[in-house]
């Protein structure tokens, strides 16, 4: 009996090794550091036109240089007074911008091309975003094509090449994304 008791006492001396605890904690810390992503904001960037003075007229744009897109409250689209659909917007914007004076209904030159978007006050916001998105995608695709012509894989690579210095951005200078958001008619 006494011998058994003694044996039990000897076993109690066992300990969990704590030397690796620090490593485990560090590993956990590093794992969470690496996997945590601080959510990045994404969106469609726009620049609003500066406020005009009372007596100042908006700069004149020739009718043919302006591609008029109208979106009504039901989300129906009119491009240059012709009924159209949202997926057609991209194609029309490209045709308009890259026209270079060929078709008298579209723009004279890339520099002069303007896209005007007009909505109703009742137009749902997501319809508006869909149309704006299509217009921007048209420009993105044109910029990509331009960058490929200059020997870059895409526009993003070109931007990396010029160090995102917008002053030197020849593609942006050539194809300006001129989008005008018209105010809806009163009433």
């Amino acid at each position, binding site marked *: 009996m006494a011998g058994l008791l003694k044996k039990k006492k000897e076993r109690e001396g066992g300990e969990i090794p704590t030397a690796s605890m620090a490593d485990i904690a560090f590993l956990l810390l590093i794992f969470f550091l690496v996997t945590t992503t601080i959510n990045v904001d994404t969106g469609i960037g726009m620049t609003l036109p500066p406020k005009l003075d009372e007596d100042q007229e908006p700069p004149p744009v020739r009718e043919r240089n302006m591609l008029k897109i109208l979106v009504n409250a039901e989300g129906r689209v009119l491009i240059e007074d012709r009924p159209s659909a949202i997926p057609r917007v991209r194609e029309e914007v490209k045709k308009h911008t890259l026209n270079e004076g060929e078709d008298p209904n579209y723009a004279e030159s890339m520099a002069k091309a303007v896209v005007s978007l007009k909505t109703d006050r009742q137009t749902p916001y997501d319809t508006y975003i869909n149309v*704006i998105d299509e217009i921007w995608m048209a420009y993105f695709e044109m910029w990509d094509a331009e960058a490929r012509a200059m020997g870059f894989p895409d526009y993003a690579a070109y931007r990396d090449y010029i160090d995102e210095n917008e002053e030197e951005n020849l593609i942006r200078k050539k194809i300006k994304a001129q989008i005008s958001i018209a105010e809806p008619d009163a009433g």
Partner: protein
Amino acid sequence: MSTHFKKKSAKSSPSIPMASMPDIIFMLIIFFMVTTVLRETEIQVRTTLPRAEALTKIDQKRLVSYMYIGPLKLANNQLGDTSIQIDDALIEDLPSVRSIMYRKLLDQPRLIVSLRVDQSSEMGIVIDVQQELREAGTLRINYSSKPEMI
């Protein structure tokens, strides 16, 4: 002399005790967990963002000021009228957007206003807000939207 030297070396322990290391690290972790405030403004309007393809990332977070437009969240999951929220406060009248944004622009001249608009909102309020932003001079805006689901 020789004996004295021997005595000294025998007394000093050769290693730092590592047993308390995990406790120190855990203490540090817990300290930072407790003191870090992940301050997320409580959004009082519903903003289900639209989805879009032509997205750009805003990497300079400190330039961004958020504006929330959407139906007011009421008790028991009901939705109220479309309202505007800037930071913590709901905006009662449109012209105050101008003064708030103008003050923000003075603090940060390269301010980007991120419009987090609910997809079911009507364009009327968005256009009114944009007119106010033009008056304030905050011309760089961003229609916050999520990437398209594939």
